[in-house]
């Protein structure tokens, strides 16, 4: 072995050794090893694509009623059959992806807009402010979520936007509680003490040290909250209290199917499958993200 190759190997080794590892890089590596999480990512990507390309994927408009072709079983013309007024079930399910994703994302956005400031305030200010915010959370928790959402929808009126608003007002509780708990535990860590010793101001510690460390759990909570919101909208629409008619909500399709399902099984099967697949996709993705970011759990 010549000295030059030995030197080259030494350099290669040295380059290999101090490879920088970041939280995000580690998380991505753990995520990529998790088959279920990748499957979830695949399902969610497929849903997002379906929602974006609905105009090209759906063979018919979602609201094209045709009474002469009502209640047809699945055929080559209507892959998932037609409903009680002759609308193509497949097209309605494709467009329904948009509604479900809009609800999931919209509700979580509202939950974050209300939950993050209140959670920050409760977790950082402490004292009477914390006490008041937590009692507020407790009061909201004591009312059943469905009833609170219904009360709010009754006050605001129905429609997609108001349903999202009502569900968002119900959903901020978890965001607020989670962020507060994160901050309370982070506040006691050594790196915060170190920052304080170095003379960092309270605002600087909050924004540069505490919040970045609380972001990963928040992302996970949002991913897990999305299917919960989608489920809630489906439930409300199932009861006939969610979005209004021509808009294709999967929950509404299931609700309408109840009276026809005993003969026309396709009306029950396909929308429920769509709901189940969406819930599974987001849950796998959320669980995968949680495991990827969770450094305490060594698998």
């Amino acid at each position: 072995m010549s000295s030059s190759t030995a030197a080259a190997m030494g350099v290669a080794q040295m380059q290999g050794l101090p490879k920088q590892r970041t939280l995000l890089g580690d998380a991505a590596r753990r995520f990529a090893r998790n088959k279920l999480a990748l499957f979830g990512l695949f399902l969610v990507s497929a849903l997002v694509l379906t929602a974006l390309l609905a105009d090209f994927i759906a063979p018919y408009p979602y609201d094209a009623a045709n009474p002469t072709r009502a209640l047809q079983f699945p055929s080559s013309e209507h892959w998932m059959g037609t409903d009680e007024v002759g609308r193509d079930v497949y097209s309605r399910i494709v467009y329904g992806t948009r509604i479900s994703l809009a609800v999931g994302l919209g509700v979580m956005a509202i939950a974050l807009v209300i939950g993050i400031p209140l959670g920050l305030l409760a977790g950082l200010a402490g004292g009477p402010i914390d006490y008041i915010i937590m009692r507020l959370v407790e009061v909201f928790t004591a009312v059943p979520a469905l009833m609170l959402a219904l009360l709010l929808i009754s006050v605001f009126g129905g429609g997609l936007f108001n349903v999202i608003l009502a569900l968002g007002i119900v959903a901020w509780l978890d965001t607020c509680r989670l962020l507060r708990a994160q901050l309370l535990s982070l506040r006691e860590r050594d790196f915060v003490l170190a920052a304080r010793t170095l003379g960092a101001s309270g605002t600087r510690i909050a924004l540069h040290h505490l919040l970045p460390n609380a972001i990963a759990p928040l992302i996970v909570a949002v991913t897990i909250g999305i299917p919960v919101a989608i489920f809630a909208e489906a439930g409300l629409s199932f009861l006939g209290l969610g979005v209004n008619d021509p808009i294709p909500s999967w929950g509404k399709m299931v609700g309408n199917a109840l009276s026809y399902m005993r003969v026309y099984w396709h009306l029950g099967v396909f929308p429920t499958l769509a709901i189940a697949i969406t819930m599974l996709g987001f849950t796998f993705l959320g669980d995968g993200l949680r495991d990827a970011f969770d450094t305490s759990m060594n698998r």
Partner: protein
Amino acid sequence: MARYLLGRLGGILVVFFIVSVVVFLLMHAIPGGPYNEDKVPLSAEAKANYMRKYGLDRPLVEQYLLYMGNALRGDFGVPFQSPTETVTGLIARTWPVSASLGLAALLVALPLGLLLGMVAASRQNTWIDYTASTISTLGLTVPNFVVAVWLVLLFAVQFKWLPTGGWGQWHHYIMPVAALALAPMALTARYTRTSILEVSRSDYIRTARSKGLSDRQIMLRHTLRNAMIPLLTILAPQIPNLITGTIFIESIFRVPGLGKFFVTSILGRDYPMIMALLLLVAVVWSLVYLITDILYVVVDPRVRLGKSKT
């Protein structure tokens, strides 16, 4: 202990007072009232009579105080949607139906979930474990009304083994209980597995093993008892939801339970019923949490109520 319980009860009363005020205001903020023309065709005079009869023409503060005063004396008023009976009577008639469904679901879910979790934990990372995990993930994520629709399609429409719905005979219980039990069962299984795996790494299990106890003895006497503690926290919040009735399951299987009144009372602006249902749920929640806290002390001698922090 007694001081702790009193403090907790006081806290519950305060929260309930605020909840009742908030809901009372929110409920009256809903546009429209119980006797609007689109709901009941009434002459203006008859409407005014009804409004006077139920005190709806008085200021809100007075209405609230009147309601709470009556409620404290056990009079919860008359449901507007069913004026021939009292709110108490209506709840006494329909709640047992919902509660029996919920309790049956719990009785099915708990042992099955424990078994599934124990089997999965003792065969960690084998196909048995993966099957159990898949079942519990499905049970946790697929909404119960979706499961209910599939059960109807499969067992009532396809095989015709069971009636599509109804109430009164034992076989009417099977599908609603199955649909209701799936999620708590999955939850129990998942947490039993995790906490058994966690507990089995602890020192006292190693001690038990090194003194020569059999796997079975270790599981039953040491692991399971300690693994049950986190399970209490997870399962407790499920109980109020299960026993106060779920509108989805009850409407799919045509069960005459309490569930539908959570919706109809809000849609019909049935103020006495809304208040009564909220009171009921709040009381059930508080009781369940209180009992859970007391159970902790029973199950785990390391916990002392009211001593560590107040």
